[in-house]
């Protein structure tokens, strides 16, 4: 399934926009989770980092993620306008012109990478640049409109922040941040497919080939269940290699069991109407809390161990 891109006119230019529209363009809610996972990588890393450098590293991660989100909205304005969930975003709603959104996003992207390079170093800046390019070019431009595997591969973009946070402190990678990357990578499909189940009409209107549309609800529920099993298995890996402590172990097992419970509820559901997709909505909501508390456990364990 492929959709046709249409170019939106630069209706508002930039002159009529409110500064809050530019703030919204940065997808602040997504950035909040990205900042959190980046901060966990930074806290979990062994070694010392000056508080100001740590602050700038987190700021650069936030700006980079925001810029990627803004570029995503610039490119996808023609899709967003056809989806109820996204039609009120600044570009499709005409509050920010397409060119203004692109200029703002590019300046923010360049500033974030430059800031990271100046404050932290080349490796962290390169990872930040890679995450922006991956999200914009690989996920947004290449995969999203072409394949139901879009969020499987694209999920890697959202998994970079813990790596960047860790590298900001140590200057190199280690097994734990790679496992944190893997956790977010495997968490992304069940998280987004649960959402895609109950907003699939939106995706159908926009012509985005999400899994429920291309392979049906039953197959999507099966994939959610399989990825959930994989997710819980990956979250146990830090325990197996003794990279985390007791608190994380308790959280990974307890939260993981609950994740599987919600995923099983989804797997067992046979409804095709969004109103009857309460298990999917519960799984989607829980998946956000799950990632938050799991990563909080990683950070807390690192602090306790010091």
């Amino acid at each position, binding site marked *: 399934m492929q959709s046709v891109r249409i170019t939106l006119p630069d209706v508002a230019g930039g*002159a009529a926009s*409110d500064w809050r529209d530019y703030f919204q363009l940065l997808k602040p809610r997504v950035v909040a989770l990205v900042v959190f996972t980046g901060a966990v990588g930074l806290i979990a890393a062994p070694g010392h980092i000056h508080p*100001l450098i740590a602050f*700038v590293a987190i700021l650069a991660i936030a700006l980079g993620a925001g810029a990627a989100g803004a570029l995503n909205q610039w490119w996808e304005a023609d899709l967003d306008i056809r989806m109820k969930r996204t039609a009120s975003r600044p570009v499709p709603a005409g509050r920010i012109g397409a060119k203004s959104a692109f200029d703002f996003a590019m300046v923010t992207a360049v500033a974030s990478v430059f800031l990271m390079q*100046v*404050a932290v170093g080349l490796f962290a800046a390169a990872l930040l640049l890679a995450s922006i390019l991956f999200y914009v070019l690989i996920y947004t431009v290449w995969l999203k409109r072409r394949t139901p595997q879009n969020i499987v591969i694209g999920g890697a973009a959202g998994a970079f922040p813990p790596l960047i946070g860790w590298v900001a402190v140590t200057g190199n990678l280690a097994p734990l941040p790679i496992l944190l990357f893997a956790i977010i990578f495997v968490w992304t499909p069940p998280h987004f497919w649960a959402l895609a189940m109950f907003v699939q009409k939106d995706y159908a209107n926009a012509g985005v080939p999400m899994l429920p549309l291309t392979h049906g609800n039953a197959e999507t529920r099966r994939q959610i269940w399989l990825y959930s099993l994989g997710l819980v298995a990956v979250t146990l890996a830090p325990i197996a290699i003794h990279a985390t402590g007791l608190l994380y172990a308790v959280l990974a097992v307890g939260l993981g069991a609950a994740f599987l419970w919600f995923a099983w509820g989804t797997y067992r559901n046979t409804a095709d109407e969004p109103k009857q997709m309460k298990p999917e909505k519960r799984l989607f909501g829980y998946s956000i809390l799950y990632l938050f508390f799991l990563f909080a456990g990683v950070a807390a364990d690192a602090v306790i161990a010091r």
Partner: protein
Amino acid sequence: MTPEETQAFYARRAARSRVIGIVLAALAVLFFLLTVVRMGKH
């Protein structure tokens, strides 16, 4: 544009200019502090 719309347009532009000013000033302070911290390491 009506006079009200014109007024709202100028108000939005002024608010945006203020925010840009604040962001630039914050960046200047941030780079100064970064320089101090990084020079302190050597």
